[in-house]
């Protein structure tokens, strides 16, 4: 729990301190702010606001928010102990956000990306229609502008107050990812504490690369549910980032201070694939030339590849977006690409 001076409504981070839940140390909030909200004593990663994530990961001044005006609607007339609208309002006041996710386009180390970030403090970061819609638009923009997509998740799962409408957001956010696959646009998932339930059971588990923060809680069902179900003790570190790394479901566990450089490196290593021919000219500077990574690889090695490994490299397939996939890519909502907008920098 935060401890604040009693005289101001919002004491501000500088004159208050927070008890680290991992090591019990009292950490000044000013210190936390300087250390990207990592406990200087034990390395515990505190949760971050969206603003802090933007400052941590994105080039200064590069973030342009999109679809800021989307707002939830209580379609079910949901009332538990209090109406859904009241819960929304309380979260809006607490966070200054309209819903649990903000997305926009930005740069990381000069590389343009479409990025979406969750705030767990807004109704547990739960995914309802607004979060789902924003994510879908984020991915569709990545597709239309051919820039990588990144999502930083912190969510308890689907938003129960929206019933099956929120369940369907699992499919709504996942469908564009299948199109990114066919179009050769990478998607990086960054899982932070916590990423559970329906968010993990959709886009968050589908990153081409999945990066997790140390000790983050990541799991499908609640740990208590899991333990009750089988009536046994859970293995050590169950549902932590490290547990998922060990079981092969995340690629790396990256301490927060290294997150930005890690993302920048991944973006360099996993560039958007060449578009099928039309924009070949713009791709001249790409490391393996306009034919795409695989055929470039084959050129360098000459016949060695097919002879020694027995792989036949078909340049037409390797050239990305052969005739079989071009059709489905074209069905994407290309209307979202504005003619006024400059082509994404590569």
């Amino acid at each position, binding site marked *: 729990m935060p401890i604040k001076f009693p005289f101001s409504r919002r004491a501000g981070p500088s004159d208050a301190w927070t008890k680290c839940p991992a090591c019990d140390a009292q950490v000044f909030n000013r210190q936390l702010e300087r250390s990207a909200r990592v406990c200087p004593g034990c390395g515990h990663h505190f949760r971050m606001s969206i603003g802090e994530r933007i400052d941590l990961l994105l080039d200064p001044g590069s973030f342009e928010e999109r679809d800021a005006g989307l707002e939830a609607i209580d379609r079910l007339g949901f009332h538990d*102990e209090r109406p859904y609208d009241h819960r929304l309002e309380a979260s809006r006041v607490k966070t200054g956000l309209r819903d649990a996710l903000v997305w926009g386009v930005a740069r990381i180390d000069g590389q343009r990306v479409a990025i979406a970030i969750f705030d767990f403090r807004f109704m547990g970061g739960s995914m309802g229609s607004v979060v789902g819609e924003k994510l879908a638009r984020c991915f569709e923009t990545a597709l239309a502008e051919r820039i990588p997509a990144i999502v930083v998740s912190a969510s308890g799962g689907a938003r129960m107050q929206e019933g099956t409408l929120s369940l*369907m*957001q*699992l499919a709504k956010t996942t469908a564009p990812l299948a199109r990114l696959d066919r179009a050769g646009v990478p998607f990086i998932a960054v899982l932070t504490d916590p990423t559970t339930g329906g968010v993990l059971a959709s886009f968050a588990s589908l990153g081409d690369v999945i990066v997790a923060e140390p000790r983050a809680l990541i799991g499908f*069902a609640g740990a208590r549910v899991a333990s009750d179900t089988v009536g046994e003790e859970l293995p050590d570190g169950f549902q932590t980032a490290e547990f998922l790394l060990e079981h*092969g479901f995340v690629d790396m566990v990256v301490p927060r201070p290294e997150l930005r450089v890690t993302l920048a490196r991944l973006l360099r290593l996993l560039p958007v694939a060449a578009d099928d021919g039309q924009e070949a000219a713009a791709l001249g500077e790409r490391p393996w030339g306009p034919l795409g990574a695989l055929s470039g690889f084959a050129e360098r090695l000459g016949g060695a590849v097919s002879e020694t490994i027995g792989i036949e490299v078909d340049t037409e397939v390797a050239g990305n977006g052969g005739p079989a996939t071009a059709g489905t890519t074209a069905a994407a909502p290309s209307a979202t690409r504005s003619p006024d907008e400059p082509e994404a920098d590569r």
Partner: protein
Amino acid sequence: MTGTTTRVEATPPTAEAIEAAWQRVQLARHPQRPRTLDLVPHMFTEFTELHGDRAFGDDAAVVGGPALLEGRPVMVIGHQKGSDTESNILRNFGSPHPEGFRKAQRLMRLAEKLGLPVITFLDTAGAFPGPAAEERGQAEAIASSIKLMTGLQVPIVVIVLGEGGSGGALAIGVGDAVLALENAVYSVISPEGCASILWRSREEARTAAAAMRMTAADQLDLGVVDAVVAEPGEGAHTDHAATARTLRAAILSALRRLTSLEAEELLASRYARLRGIGAYLDTGAGATHPVEPPSLGRRIGRMLRLPGVPRRPRWSEIWPSDGGEDENERGA
């Protein structure tokens, strides 16, 4: 594209609404309710069950294989609950492990390879939440199954038979036509789970069932299902054969429409269907913090840190965290 904008006044569910909703839940969970394998012989011929996910094992909570529908091959996939204690133990009460969803994916890929329409039957309380399922990637199995279905290049008809329980149902529930039996239910979390989180008491499951609007009729209203299929007499449990006959006719009618589409049209309409589900309002409000390129003078001023030139606010000042740790809130 805009979402639905109908706002509904939030009130606690009435006693009648609670009673009506719970009655449907009971029917959907009725021990004699027809399961996938009860209906298959009435609807298809030569169903041949295929086993295993080719990676870890065979999950008896998911069944599937090719069959003939009016003499033409289709791929049938469904959750499978048991009908007594023994069969329920074998079927894990219809709650799949990851290998169940991976078997389903394998069968869907086979259907796509051969151009067979896919017909799925949903009837699960949810994906199994145990530690073994977590270790083997329950969330990944569900997510990749959903993703595969959104892009599968053959028609998919989905039937909600009994309980459409959360991600475990949706994992085989993305389709071009989604039908629900009259007494089927579909929800983001079980009413018991919802009650224990939002009402802090499992005793409120009935109230949660009403609040979540989980009946087939509600799902039709929300646009989650496209049609509700009537059940015979007092419910599907009273007459499996009659239930199968009506369902079969509904499936055939959906397939006639879907098989006339080119793969491209099919995928575009499946995508549009999913994109259209949800309720939100676009207030058109601008960005919280519009980014406008600063004038040259201001840029130089900032660079030289001249007095009177305001620095650009950091995003953490616009959306700060409130210092400490937050209490846990749960989603589904």
